[in-house]
């Protein structure tokens, strides 16, 4: 009974006339209605508030634009002049170098500390709950609050750090002004950035470590591999995908760093400790050189784009599997 009716339906479907072209268009359109309605608001936001500004900034980077020009739309096209300035002007070029050197240092510091902490957390010591809670907290502190906190800790006269260093016998640090010199300002900013970023890296790596099969580690131990060899030969290769994602991720974070530098670096003479994001912002909004500011932003964007593409490829690969 059911087979015959099934055949009848199949036969009926075969005999039905092919839908006309207009009908097919209508059907495709109706199939698209719901996705379009659902996606429209989000796409408007992404195109209007990310896509358009990006294109506009790239255009501005080829123009001479002051505040008045910006508002009236009367920028003058000057070709690559802004970019020439970015790479010849001492201060602007320094900000790019600062970004790469300081950013890389922060990435290395964060990754090394994050890895050590992840390995420790994975040991499941007693009081592990306390340890993991302690490690979580710095991540929750907003960047501006963290910068304020460390500016207080590193205060020249009443700061805890100088008091502790002098107490330990380093008399050189009596009234030492951390934020008046480029290198010492970087030391302080490095501590802030690492303090804020290592929790995320550590907890992500811990999640990765927990997927390393214990059998494999035990087998390696039976074969005579010591702890260091087990880490290098078993754990590290298995962690490679997540490590790659995290390195790219922190590179993007640390290269576009703004808040901490904006709060902590203005005391350095000649603004020699500013990173590209801060310099771009200052060129535009403090000095009114919107074209130059845009050019620095575009250079930073292009540097980060390389990392972003690498990141998207890695994530895309994971999403597919």
């Amino acid at each position, binding site marked *: 009974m059911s087979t015959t009716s099934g055949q009848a339906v199949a036969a009926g479907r075969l005999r039905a006339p092919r839908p006309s072209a207009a009908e097919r268009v209508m059907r495709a359109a109706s199939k698209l209605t719901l996705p379009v309605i659902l996606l429209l608001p*989000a796409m408007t*936001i*992404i195109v209007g508030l990310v896509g358009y500004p*990006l294109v506009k900034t790239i255009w501005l980077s080829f123009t001479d634009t002051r505040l008045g020009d910006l508002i009236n739309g009367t920028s003058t096209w000057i070709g690559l002049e802004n970019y020439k300035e970015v790479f010849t002007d001492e201060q602007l070029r320094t900000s790019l170098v600062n970004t790469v050197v300081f950013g890389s240092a922060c990435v290395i510091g964060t990754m090394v500390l994050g890895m050590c*902490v992840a390995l420790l957390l994975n*040991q499941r010591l007693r009081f592990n709950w306390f340890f993991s809670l302690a490690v979580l907290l710095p991540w929750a502190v907003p960047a501006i609050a963290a910068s304020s906190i460390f500016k207080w800790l590193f205060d020249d006269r009443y700061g805890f750090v100088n008091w502790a260093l002098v107490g330990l016998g380093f008399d050189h640090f009596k009234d030492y002004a951390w934020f008046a010199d480029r290198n010492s300002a970087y030391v302080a900013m490095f501590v802030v950035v690492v303090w804020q970023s290592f929790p995320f890296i550590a907890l992500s790596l811990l999640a990765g470590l927990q997927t390393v099969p214990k059998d494999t580690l035990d087998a390696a131990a039976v074969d005579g591999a010591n702890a260091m060899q087990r880490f290098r030969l078993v754990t590290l290769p298995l962690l490679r995908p997540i490590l790659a994602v995290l390195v790219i991720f922190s590179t993007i974070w640390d*290269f576009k760093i703004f808040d901490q530098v*904006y709060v902590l670096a203005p005391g350095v003479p000649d603004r020699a400790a500013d990173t590209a994001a801060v310099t771009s912002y200052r060129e535009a909004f403090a000095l009114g050189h919107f074209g130059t500011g845009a050019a620095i932003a575009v250079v930073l964007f292009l540097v980060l784009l390389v990392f972003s593409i690498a990141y998207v490829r890695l994530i895309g690969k994971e999403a597919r599997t």
Partner: protein
Amino acid sequence: MRWMLRRGWMYVCALAVSAFALFPIYYVVITSLKPRSEIYTRTPDLWPNDPQWHQYTRVFTEGHVGRALANSLIVATATTLICVLVAGMAAYALARLEVPLKRTLLMLILTTQMFPLVVLIIPLFVLMRNANLIGTYQGLVVAYLAFTVPLAIWIMRGFILTIPEELEHAAMTDGATRVGAMFRVILPIAGPGLIATATLSFIAAWNEFMLALTFMDTEEKKTLPLVLQQFVGRGDTDWGAVMATSVIYTVPVILFFLLMRKRLMLGMTAGAVKG
């Protein structure tokens, strides 16, 4: 004894890391409870000898911290509500429906996450100026959607993908429409994911500084990070006020983090809470 040698150093390291992580937070809290004479001293104590709340009452009455707190709450809440609605719709479409160029769209959404805000800020400033939205909540909320929506789409799509599609099919064979199934079947199950996404968007908006610095030009509309930065930027910094404000600014985020500890990690790989 051998145990001490094998495991002992790990405890020492764990203790050192915990101290590094917690000490700054602890020191801020105690500074905010100290009277002036104990703050401005060259021999700081590691505990408040005479703890008192007056820094907090002072920043709320003299400073603009109360108003800034309200501004921050308004902006972050509005951003979160709009963001979750808009991103939720898009995430559903990208998880469940046939969308042309879906892969390209997804990759684009992920890439926008990586953009430095400074590359968008000049045109955004012009847009806001021309729309007369400088110094308004609306303007800042709209600008915040630029970076919260892509993030939220990515996270929520991940959550929706973990819900078995059969549930919707079952609802639809029982006579529900696709939209009905979306609201009645998916939405309740996706609840935890929605809450996690909402939390992340809220924190992202709460922490944001650069856009607020550019758009909120009047004292009445400044958000907490702006007020805090103003306190710190002054030549003769009032550290008691700075510390109390830092605590007020940080406590909501810490509460969120403690409540959402497990779920936060899920969303994080898409790239979230960070200045």
